[in-house]
């Protein structure tokens, strides 16, 4: 009993012990912060990678793509662990904003939106259709307009915050920001105007379409000609049909900008028109034959994966439209126009596995099953999928991106662990000093019948208690710091003008602020072990003391 009693009492009454507790708390705090932020950082990268590719990705090694993807997808869905599969096209293109000099190279992803939301959490990052279970290329214009109006209100509120009573702020930086915000507000108003006009024409368009359907097929009928002309005119002035809608990655340079505090302000918004130019790289096409395809799109939404490097570079278009523009549609035989000579193609098939199967080993098992299905499919349909099909888990697919970050995280954690291990020596010095101070008390305890092991136990228990108390304080401190890391940084920025995490240049919108509890458990266990290690030499010294010598110690 005396061991527990004395180690707790020493913990309470020795000032030196407070320093030991403090050193443990600081180390636990520091490690928890670094591990949580680094793991959060990696997790976001992984989530983005997974969001882009699903769980398992079947990919063509060449630009000519995979054929018979729907048939293959149907067979893949027969694997019990496979929940969904969707084709995907990824190519390169240039976007242009009509009436401006704006040009930007981008990656263009062709997706089936509803299927995309099943294989990834794509819908979570949407602006207009955020969280909608089955997002569509044809959301209600009212909804898009309402969301855009809200965004305009937000932009106006930011301007009011900076400019106060409507004038210009004194600081040149703020004045410049207000100018940019007003320009963005103008862009947003322009988009809203287009959406309002589309809304206004929608009823008339629907009526004309109905009339044209019911009317005779005589295209020379002046009434029909007039209706058709009116429809074309309205279509010209309205937004493009769902086939030509586009979702922008939120972060494409020039289409939006970030404020220093991390807020993103949209310039080109849902409602705007964008021209997409593609160099189609279809199968059996000589390089000399490649001529650009172009089409006008209406931006209907934007999306963020929380990873800046992905969002700044990508736009999404309807799968079938992109297939057509990229010359990946089916080709028919010259002799028999009904016979498919070359099936329509995609770049990849993204496979979603059943919930809960997230472990990499489980995914590799499913990947092997998918490989089996693909090989069998290829055997039965020679040439359908094209040469060099690869099947990888999302992690394997993004190894080039994830592996260096994992290594960076490991290295950082190792460095901080080495730095933190200094606390073992600090505890050793503190405890050694306590043992020296308490030599006569140790002699007394032995004279009262305490065993060698019992005396050692006091100091080992003391070390463990220092580890436990320091860990609790460090964990609580670390938890609150990590949770509030973004406001803390904002405060530091406001107070001292110093920002560690430059949001306008860094990958992520916000510093990851989720505490990694698994890592916290390991850190706490490590801190307790460190406390014990630091106490072990002093404890041995105390245990070895001869009571008669200790009692006479001066």
């Amino acid at each position, binding site marked *: *009993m005396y061991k527990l009693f004395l180690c707790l009492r020493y913990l309470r*009454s020795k000032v030196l012990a407070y320093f030991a507790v403090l050193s443990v708390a600081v180390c636990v705090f520091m490690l928890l912060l670094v591990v949580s932020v680094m793991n959060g950082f990696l997790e976001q990268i992984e989530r983005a990678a997974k969001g882009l590719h699903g769980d398992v990705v079947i990919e063509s090694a060449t630009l000519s793509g995979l054929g018979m993807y729907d048939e293959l997808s149907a067979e893949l869905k027969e694997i019990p662990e496979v929940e969904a599969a969707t084709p995907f096209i990824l190519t390169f293109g240039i976007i242009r904003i009509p009436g401006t000099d704006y040009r930007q190279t981008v990656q263009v992803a062709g997706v089936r939106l509803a299927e995309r939301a099943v294989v990834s959490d794509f819908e979570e990052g949407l602006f207009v259709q955020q969280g909608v279970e089955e997002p569509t290329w044809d959301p209600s214009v009212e909804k898009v307009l309402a969301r855009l109006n809200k965004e305009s209100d937000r932009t106006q509120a930011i301007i009011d915050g900076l400019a106060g009573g409507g004038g210009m702020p004194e600081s040149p930086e703020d004045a410049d920001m207000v100018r940019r915000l007003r320009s963005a507000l103008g862009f947003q108003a322009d988009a809203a105007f287009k959406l309002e006009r589309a809304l206004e024409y929608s009823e008339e368009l629907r009526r004309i379409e109905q009339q044209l359907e019911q009317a005779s097929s005589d295209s020379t009928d002046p009434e029909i000609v007039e209706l058709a002309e009116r429809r074309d005119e309205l279509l010209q002035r309205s937004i493009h049909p769902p086939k030509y809608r586009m979702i922008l990655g939120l972060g494409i340079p020039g289409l939006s900008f970030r404020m220093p505090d991390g807020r993103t302000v949209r310039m080109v918004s849902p409602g705007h028109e964008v021209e997409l130019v593609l160099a189609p790289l279809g199968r059996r096409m000589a390089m000399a034959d490649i001529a650009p395809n172009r089409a006008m799109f209406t931006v209907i939404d934007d999306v963020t994966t929380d990873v800046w490097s992905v969002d700044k570079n990508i736009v999404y278009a309807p799968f079938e439209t992109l297939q057509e523009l990229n010359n990946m549609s089916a080709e028919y035989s010259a002799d028999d126009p009904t016979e498919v000579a070359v099936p329509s193609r995609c770049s990849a098939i993204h496979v979603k596995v059943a919930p809960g199967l997230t472990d990499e080993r489980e995914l590799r098992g499913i990947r092997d099953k998918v490989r089996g299905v693909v090989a069998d499919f290829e055997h039965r349909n020679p040439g359908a999928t094209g040469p060099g099909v690869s099947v990888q888990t999302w992690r394997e697919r993004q190894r080039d991106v994830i592996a260096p970050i994992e290594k960076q995280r490991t290295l950082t954690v190792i460095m901080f662990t080495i730095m933190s291990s200094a606390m073992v020596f600090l505890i050793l010095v503190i405890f050694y000093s306590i043992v020296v101070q308490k030599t006569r008390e140790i002699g007394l*305890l032995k*004279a009262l*019948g305490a065993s060698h092991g019992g005396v050692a136990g006091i100091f080992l228990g003391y070390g463990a208690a220092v580890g436990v108390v320091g860990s609790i304080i460090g964990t609580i401190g670390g938890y609150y710091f990590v949770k509030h890391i973004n406001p803390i940084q904002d405060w530091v920025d406001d107070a001292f003008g110093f920002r560690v995490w430059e949001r306008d240049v860094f990958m992520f919108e916000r510093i990851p602020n989720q505490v990694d509890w698994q890592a916290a458990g390991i850190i706490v266990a490590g801190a307790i072990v460190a406390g014990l290690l630091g106490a072990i030499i002093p404890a041995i010294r105390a245990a070895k003391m001869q009571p008669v010598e200790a009692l006479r110690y001066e």
Partner: protein
Amino acid sequence: MSELAVNATDLHKTYSMGKVPLHVLRGVSFSVKKGEFVCIVGASGSGKSTLLHLVGLVDKADKGRIFLDGTDIGKLPNRRRNRMRCGEVGFVFQFYHLLPELTVMENTLLPSMVDSSAVGWVGRRRHRRTQAAKLLERLGLGERLKHRPKELSGGERQRVAIARAMINSPGLLLADEPTGNLDSKTGGRILDLLRRFNQETGQTIVMVTHDSALASQADRVLHLLDGRLNG
């Protein structure tokens, strides 16, 4: 059961002072009957405390045998020696050796805690506290239970040390110059207390002092001179 609380024969003890051996005890033999109050008197450095440490199992003799209540303590394993130190011998030191972090009550209870596991302590804690409170009351410290040693006078500290030595009701109480650090009046009171314990409860006491006047109050006085006992 032996009639003798202590029976020591031909005890030798040598310490090394650098390269020079210091023969502190040179064949000391003595015995103490149960219920007896024996005083060992000798000049400073005569080996009084060493003799007490040997009897109290705090140190080991180079030669000779010691029987406590008939048990040859030289042959006991460490575990048994620890148990005897805790339960059968009580020690009172000249410099009290109270733990400064603990209160009067906690210092008194320390040997009981050493004698108990954490689980065992839960069961006997209340009883032990009552026992300690009574003992401290008897020693005139009833109002000081929650005080720390630094808040007590020298005499009070020594009374706490006596309470601590008596809490496990040991068969033998060893007092090493218990009044050596106190003024004569306070020292006299401490001696009265020990004497009272001896008379009222039949507590066997072996006390070491260099003060012949105090020693005269004991049942028997042994003189230690140059490592040998006379008287």
